[in-house]
């Protein structure tokens, strides 16, 4: 659980973040991806794809960001 | 730009700039003192004969008297409530060891940042449908507005008083404690006198913010608890043509701002920027 300590650190994101910041970024991306999907991609792929995608991205951001 | 000439040019420059600042208000004052017939002749920037009819009409109108009364009651009660609560809260935050108090302070402050329009709908629904006790709802009551205005005024007051409270030496109340004073006595006998100027500024500014508020008042009241700002807005939609009276009401609305300006102008910038900018 080394990554989840609240101490700020440097990951692939351009700024130093702590666990809370990365969680926040994950949620912001989740909402953004869903809204984008509803507008442009839902005609081709169902919405749960967006959920899976944003959850994967969320996990990556929280663990590696 | 040194020397006398430079100073004179700057002085004259500021006269022109202040003219731009004051002109809209001056113009409104002129309109409020004109009769209907005079209004639509060529605009004249000089005061003609003063007619106070617009003010008399407005001030003797019973609906408008109700609006003014509501505004005075709401703003005054809110300012008193906010000042007392903020005094207690900042005393607690500054003198007691409370778990997570930095987070609490931060959370209190963020309440102010929320855009009002976003919360209109949930507040309207809460006021009309949820906060109902035995057939009486908070909708269209002065109490509702007084409590609601705390949401934006309390964070501001707490921020303003926090600095003042931290500036009062803890040794003073500790000495009083050793002499056997209770917490309440410390608060009234030691903190209150020292924080008085700060409390006055807080009360004045919260009063003005509550007086100026429009959006919540317009949405969450209908007849009984309408305030002066909603009265002003009604002029445009209902009797859009009576510009003289509209100007008179607007003058009355901005009167407190002008009256209190000198007292609080040093604090208003720090207040509006949440201390991010100190003067």
């Amino acid at each position, binding site marked *: 659980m080394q990554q989840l300590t609240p101490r700020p650190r440097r990951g692939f994101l351009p*700024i*130093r973040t702590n666990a809370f910041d990365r969680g926040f970024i994950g949620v912001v991306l989740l*909402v953004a991806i869903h809204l984008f999907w*509803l507008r442009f991609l839902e005609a081709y792929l169902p919405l749960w794809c967006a959920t899976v995608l944003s959850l994967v991205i969320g996990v990556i951001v929280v663990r590696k960001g | 730009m040194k020397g006398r000439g430079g*100073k004179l040019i*700057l002085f004259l*420059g*500021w006269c022109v700039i*202040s003219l731009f*600042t*004051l002109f809209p*208000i001056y*113009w*409104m004052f002129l309109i409020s003192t004109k009769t209907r017939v005079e*209004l639509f002749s060529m*605009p004249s*920037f000089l005061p003609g004969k003063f007619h106070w009819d617009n003010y008399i009409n407005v001030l003797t109108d019973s609906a408008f008297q109700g609006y003014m009364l509501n505004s005075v009651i709401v703003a005054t009660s809110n300012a008193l409530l906010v000042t007392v*609560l903020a005094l*207690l809260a900042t*005393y*607690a*935050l500054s*003198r*007691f060891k*409370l778990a997570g108090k930095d987070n*609490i302070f931060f959370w209190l402050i963020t309440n102010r940042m*929320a855009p009002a*329009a*976003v*919360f*209109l*709908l*949930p507040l*309207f*629904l*809460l006021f009309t449908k949820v906060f109902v006790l035995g057939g009486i709802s908070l909708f269209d009551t002065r109490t509702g507005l007084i*409590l609601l205005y705390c949401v934006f005024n*309390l964070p501001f007051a707490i921020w303003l008083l926090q600095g003042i409270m931290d500036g009062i030496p803890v040794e003073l109340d500790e000495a009083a*404690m050793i002499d056997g004073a209770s917490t309440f006595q410390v608060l009234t006998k030691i903190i209150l006198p020292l924080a008085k100027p700060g409390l006055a500024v807080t009360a004045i500014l919260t009063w*003005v913010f509550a*007086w*100026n508020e*429009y*959006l919540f008042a317009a*949405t969450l009241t209908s007849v009984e608890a309408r305030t002066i*700002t909603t009265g002003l*807005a009604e*002029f445009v939609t209902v009797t859009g043509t009576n*510009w003289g009276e*509209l*100007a008179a009401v*607007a003058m009355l609305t*901005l009167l407190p701002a002008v009256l*209190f*300006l000198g007292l609080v102008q040093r604090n*208003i*910038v720090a207040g*509006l*920027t949440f201390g*991010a900018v100190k003067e």
Partner: protein
Amino acid sequence: MRSSTIGWLFLAPTLLILLVFGMLPFVYVLVIGFTDWNAFAAVATPHFNGVENYRRLVFDDQVLTALWLTLRFTIFAVVSELILGYFLAQLFMRDFPLKGLFRTLHTLPLMVAPIAVGATWRLLTVPGLGPLSYYLERWAGIEYRLNTYASQAFFTTVLMDLWHWTPLVTLTLLAGLSALPKDPFEQAQIDGANRFQIFWHITLPMLRPVILTTVFIRAMDALRTVDEVWMLTGGGPGAATRYIGLHIWRVVFPKTDYGYGAAMSLLTLYLTIVLCWLLYVALVARKRSGEDSR
């Protein structure tokens, strides 16, 4: 330290009020944003309908236009206020007679109720009554009609915002300028730097935190402008100045489409928070990268 129970007791009323009137509405809007609730519908109680409101929202041209207009208004207003405010702050840095009085006068618009600001500007611009419309037509031959020409209405709202809020920018920048150390400027003058070089390489970088803070605060306020614009243009002509707050207030309420209105409110809040956060990151990123390099 004393018993913390009393401390919590003192804090309790404040926390209670902010929880009930600050947090509860947020939670409430979050819930009804995912429901179908229309007071005039056959079933007038909220029931869960998933992301249906948001599906409607992303295709609602009126909302997207309102959001775009709000952003445009904010950018125009904040940028012009910064430029004008910086210029005025520099003027305040010098010495001249009656400086205190001018400063106080300059603060006046900040205290005026936004709704009264709107009324003031309406009186300046009403055709046949206001001097602005009269003289623009007479001297410049411009037909000035706020209820006809969209771009005139838009720029008048920007101008009104400029009148109302430039003083705040002036005074924050003035505070920033007064706090700057003198040495770098003297050194630069000795080195023969010209005015623009001094501004670009010394003043601007040192003033950066104050500028960003000012932009942050002003942007937050400009994004939620409602009262003044409602009073000046009523959102018109058409929907040319119907900024998002005004849109939520004027369009959603009369239709009593609560679920959809809640979704719209949430989207606005989301965008505000994201924008706010980006500005905040820009504000602290410099500081933090400075710590890194040490």
